[in-house]
């Protein structure tokens, strides 16, 4: 992935309808989002905002989240996704849809708590959670200590998360998509201070 992704990204927020029912509706919403993001510069973070969604069925979840994500991940570089505002009743349809298309996405609950959506192996999931909960980002060595693995293995895990667009990267500092969206990219001093 290009180094452009580590610099400031444009943010596109898609606030979803309250009733996301039927595949037909889902398709219309997905196409609308795709049109919206087509005109944005890259790197780009598209936030799928679920705060107003009171109901979503499996067919709609497949179109609006899984199929949208699959298209972005397969066809684009420098385009990240974040699913925000999740409530418990969103999870079953969204998780099911993501599993069917073999997609993993960074998410967060309505209260901001990070949540990795889709199926990921336990070690990768743990590594992601460490990054997601660290506002200032994480470097390989501190992650390695947290996970009980050597730094090269920690770096490999972080690079894999970055390749899958589950985290942002700035040199050897890896941070959550939310942190990148909120502009929490640390300045040069912080990056050089070895925090993580």
């Amino acid at each position: 992935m290009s180094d452009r992704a580590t610099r400031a990204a444009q943010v596109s927020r898609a606030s979803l309808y309250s009733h996301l029912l039927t595949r037909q509706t889902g398709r219309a919403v997905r196409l609308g989002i795709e049109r919206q993001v087509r005109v944005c510069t890259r790197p780009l973070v598209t936030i799928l905002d679920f705060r107003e969604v009171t109901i979503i069925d499996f067919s709609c979840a497949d179109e609006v989240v899984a199929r949208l994500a699959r298209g972005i991940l397969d066809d684009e570089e420098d385009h990240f996704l974040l699913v925000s505002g999740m409530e418990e009743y969103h999870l079953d349809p969204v998780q099911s849809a993501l599993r069917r298309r073999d997609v993993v996405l960074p998410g967060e609950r309505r209260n901001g708590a990070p949540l990795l959506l889709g199926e990921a192996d336990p070690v990768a999931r743990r590594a992601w959670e460490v990054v997601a909960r660290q506002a200032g980002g994480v470097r390989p060595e501190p992650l390695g200590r947290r996970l009980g693995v050597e730094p090269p293995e920690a770096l490999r895990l972080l690079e894999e998360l970055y390749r899958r667009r589950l985290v942002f990267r700035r040199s050897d500092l890896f941070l959550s998509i939310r942190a990148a969206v909120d502009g929490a990219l640390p300045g040069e001093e912080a990056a050089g201070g070895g925090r993580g």
Partner: protein
Amino acid sequence: MSRVVEVPQQLDEEGFERLIAALNEATGVQANGDTGTAAADRDGSSGASGEGGGGAGAGGGRDGGAGRILLDARRVRWSSPYGLIGLLAAGEVARRRTGLAPAIEPPESAEVRSYWRRMDVWQNATEVFRLPAIASRSHRDSDALLEITPILSHRDVHQVVDRVRERAAAILERRLRYPKPSVIQFSVMLSEVCQNILEHADAAGWVCAQTYHWKKRLGRDVLVLAVMDVGQGFAGSLASEHARRFGDRWSASTALEAAFLNGESRFRDPGRGQGLQAIRRQVTRWNGEIRIRSGDAMIARVPDWDDIPDRESGLPEFPGAQILIVMPARVGEGAEA
């Protein structure tokens, strides 16, 4: 000349099977369904358009000279949502097979007639049977969760879900003692079963739901949701993608297994086919029952409180798909539903 098909006194799942068998006999359908009738059942391509001349058309397998079918419902004493929309489905199939809109004798029982009126049987029957048009009625006095509703478009699905949400909340939480999230889960399930009609049947269908007290069968209240169509059925829908793999074993039974157990779909898209799986998972969590009948086969998730077989084949042939979901009331704090 009309052929009379008697509607069973108990118009439920078993009653529907007897109705189908009687209809098949009256319209000359073989036990294994002959090709000509299967074509007519599937798409009405043999020219059934309500009224018209005698019976036999180029498609063959139709009830050539026997004329109109009369469904005699005078002796009906009890009907479930499944039985009610089964009656409409049977009427539609009779219409396709004979080329003539069937007639219907209403129930003699005042109580049953009143229930049929409240469930909008007659509003929907005018589309199928030879009946005068009936004005739509207010549902303010209805105690039904969902009166019979045709599903013709995705807009119908939205409207159905919107319409039942308040009633579903009252019934699920207060009467059946389900937790609050179940209202959304039920609405999602309703959306998915109705979409099955639009996505797979290539034909119209109906949905209906009611709550009962199953005194003998379970000793508890239950919510019964029924969805039916008379389209191409699971075997027809999945054939183009899956039949070759099964070879001679391809049948309504294998198609139901593929869809219900393995999440297979008529579409190659990996995102398809999850609706039915999701419904099965949710019904299992509620310790409910789901049965799907299509063609000559049935498959079910059977809870511990019932003893029906989980699979059947060799049933009377009938087009489309017929789905029954039963959600029992929960008992005790944190106990199984």
